């Protein structure tokens, strides 16, 4: 298919989105990520039954925490697709890139740079 998607997206592979913990998401922001999104299988089609549903709940919790601390919950998103949907994968990546560009850089990254300076 030779599809393109934004090069600023770093893929972290996990066996199932159910492996993704709130702490992984928060640490990503602490380390300067501008946004994090989890791409899981279609709901109801998880190989481990409920991994993607757990991921969605954790994403929701991370959103709440990020909203509370002023980083912005919108920077975390959950998306679902089937593994045969390459074009949708590329589409989600572009959408996420667009969303994050609209929101601007992670304020934590800016604050740590300021602190270091």
């Amino acid at each position, binding site marked *: 298919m030779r599809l393109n998607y934004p090069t600023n997206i770093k893929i972290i592979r996990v066996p199932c989105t159910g492996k993704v913990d709130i702490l992984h998401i928060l640490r990503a922001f602490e380390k300067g990520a501008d946004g994090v999104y989890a791409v899981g299988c279609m709901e109801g089609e998880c190989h481990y039954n409920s991994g993607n549903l757990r991921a969605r709940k954790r994403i929701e919790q991370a959103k709440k*925490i990020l909203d509370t601390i002023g980083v912005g919950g919108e920077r975390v998103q959950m998306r679902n697709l089937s593994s045969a949907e390459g074009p949708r994968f590329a589409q989600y990546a572009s959408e996420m890139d667009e969303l994050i560009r609209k929101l601007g850089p992670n304020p934590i990254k800016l604050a740590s740079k300021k602190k270091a300076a």
Partner: protein
Amino acid sequence: MIVADKKPIEEIIKEIESYNRVLILGCNECVTVCEAGGKKEVGILASALRMYFLNQGKDVKIDEVTLERQCDHEYLEEIRDRVDKYDAVLSLACGVGVQFMAEKYQTLPVYPGVNTCFLGVTEKRGLWTERCQACGKCILAKTAGICPVSRCAKRILNGPCGGSTNGKCEISKEVDCAWQLIIDRLKALGKMDDYENIIPLKDWSTDRAGGPRKVAREDVQL
């Protein structure tokens, strides 16, 4: 186990925002099981607080330690050599742990990071319900293993009362009538004759009504 619930981050921020070096202290026992104050919750809270203070332009050092328990001297002693490095401790243990921590380290401010709720069970993941009020004189032998002190809104010892309808309590349709549960279980056990035995007035002096309590066991004391 002792069941606790998370405190809102906003409330925790208000408690500790005047300090520059804070230790978040988790507990590996009950609060880990009820997902309120274990190693993972310590990590999440520490990460969130670090980001919050950094974003506010404040230089606050937030460290994480999770002890095996906070209700025993030996585990709290493990941090004696490092508590000097902190201005305050945010304990994610139950109220017992918070207080014992405060007792042992007189000059160190200790703040609670969770709301301690009750003695209960994990009915399913994410749902904890009360089972015991630690009244100090267990009557479960007489009530088919179901406690009317903790599970009946009125703590009635010879029930049910007139508020019991279709097995539910009058305070809420979601609350089981403890005495209905007791009768159902007595029937299942074939012990309905026991229901005829009136439970006498309970000695509440061992409950909180008698003031703070203690258990002193000379047989195990050194």
